[in-house]
């Protein structure tokens, strides 16, 4: 019986070991300086990199955060500091439902809201789709960390006659800052690898784009296109891209761990 449980645990860990092994063995050969500095080359030409896709992913994540952080954090503040039980229940319920909406549906929504009216796919549309996904994540983590701030802080500040908004913005948010940043990093890790919401919103391209109003490349989408292409050289690039993407995602979650483990200063 114990052996069975150990076997289960082993089977759960196995896929991670396998994927890391294959990513390293198949991807490392194509990851070099050019990969980070060059544009993609068409099939048949050697060399080339994914510089535009890497930068594109960073831009998209940044755009998403610009949308999601204010709404998520202020929504979390509402839940923790202002809302009544009844209202909070429905907002939390809504956020939980949003968390379960498949990412491909977010892609369709962003397409309808930000691509159709402007007639073109753009970085804005992709950032919006990713931002939609991040809002409920940030909202719930913000609420959770704000609730952990001891009530005595609020009471003491109120006794001093400090206005409510200053109490929240300068005492409570500051006390919970570490937790807030952890939540934001977690959300970034989650959306950085999302592909489905980008399929209809950013289009992807092979060049540097100079405007956020234009189509943009992203690492996950590039990996998808190269992985499903019938050419060996593109497949190899896909493995290299996947290795870079997973390192990016793991770095984000490692920083979460470092942040969370540091003692409250």
């Amino acid at each position: 019986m114990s052996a069975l449980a150990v076997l289960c645990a082993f089977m759960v860990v196995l896929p991670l070991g396998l994927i890391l092994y294959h990513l390293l063995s198949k991807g490392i050969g194509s990851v070099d300086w050019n990969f980070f500095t060059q544009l993609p080359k068409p099939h048949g030409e050697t060399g080339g990199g994914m510089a535009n896709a890497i930068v594109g992913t960073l831009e998209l994540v940044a755009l998403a955060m610009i949308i999601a952080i204010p709404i998520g954090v202020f929504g979390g503040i509402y839940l923790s500091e202002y809302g009544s039980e009844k209202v909070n229940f429905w907002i939390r319920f809504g956020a939980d439902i949003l968390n379960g909406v498949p990412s491909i549906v977010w892609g369709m929504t962003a397409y309808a809201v930000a691509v159709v009216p402007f007639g073109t796919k753009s970085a804005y549309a992709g950032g919006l789709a990713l931002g939609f996904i991040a809002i409920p994540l940030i909202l719930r983590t913000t609420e959770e960390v704000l609730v952990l701030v001891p009530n005595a802080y609020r009471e003491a500040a109120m006794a001093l006659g400090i206005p409510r908004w200053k109490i929240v913005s300068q005492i409570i948010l500051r006390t919970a800052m570490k937790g807030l940043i952890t939540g934001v990093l977690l959300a970034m890790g989650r959306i950085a690898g999302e592909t489905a919401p980008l399929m209809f919103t950013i289009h992807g391209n092979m060049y540097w784009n100079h405007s956020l109003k234009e189509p943009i490349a992203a690492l996950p989408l590039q990996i998808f296109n190269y992985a499903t292409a019938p050419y060996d050289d593109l497949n190899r690039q896909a493995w290299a891209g996947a290795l870079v993407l997973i390192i990016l995602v793991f770095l984000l979650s490692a920083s979460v761990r470092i942040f969370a483990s540091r003692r409250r200063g």
Partner: protein
Amino acid sequence: MGNRAEKFSLSPPGFFPSINTIVLLAMPTLTDLPISVTPMPSHEQQAIVNSPTSRFGDRFFYLLALASAIAVVLLLLLVIGVQIRGSKLSFEAFGWSFLTTREWDPTPGSENYGALPFIYGTVVSSLLALVIAVPLSVGTAVFLTDLAPLKIRQPLVSIIEMLAAVPSVIWGLWGIFVMVPWLNSHLVPVLKSVLGFLPLFQGPCIGGSMLAGGMVIAIMILPIVTSVSREILRSVPDLQREAAYGLGATRWEVTRIAVLSYARRGLMGAAVLGLGRAVGETMAVTMVIGNVAQIKPSLFASGYTLASVIANVFAEASSDLQSSALFEIGLVLMGVTIIINIFALLLIKAFETPGSRRA
């Protein structure tokens, strides 16, 4: 976490004549004092409390928070509204028979779309994923809460978190180039020779298959099902275990009777939550399931899921009707996941009894 903030949410700021009243009501230690003995603030404090800027600041800050909270609800309405509006054309053309039609024919002039093969593919691949993932996850959760030496618990939890962080598209890539070839050359022949008498395991297996789709979804839902199951098992009261040991139960009996059967509703919630994820999973499945709209009893045959058909076709939809049909598929997908998720939340909530949480 029920009552922590109530004391401070008596009313939004600005609705009361003076913040002093709120302060007084909010102070648990002062609640027995009559309001009239409010200590008079000094002049500076009076200035801060009643200054127009602070009142404006309070109201502004509150409205900002309120607007963000409302935005979350609006976002839910938006995502539902977009899908409903988008699927109008298709619903007018096909009505409810959309759900039971097998055809997917984009030929101009005789367009006919039905969602049945995609519904079938989603159901089969998700159920297969559950069959694989739930026992493994629950086993791992038991290992983590009751059996594993304390030293390896935290590292194992971290590994499972890392597993959860791997993006879907990377599982798909790995699926195409590692898992599918291995399945077709190693696992499929074994399944055929052992279970070949069942229609599930008959026929050739070339390229992507339902089996591959189910496997890759299973891997992807392992972390969530494991971590929720672990939370559930951790909240089984120790008294429960101690009582079973006291009755002379063996370790296996304690786990089976005192822990698993006590927690079964919560574990079912974890499984249903996994199902919700499985149904909506897109990229990895699209890359390994074969993408053929057909209904075949064999797991070795190619399939197609609701999410995959959107991913593959939506960007190049050939007509307004086709894109509307895809919106309707999105609506079905979203409706199903919302219902599944609500069901899972209810199951987990019903299990969580207050005060039973183990440290």
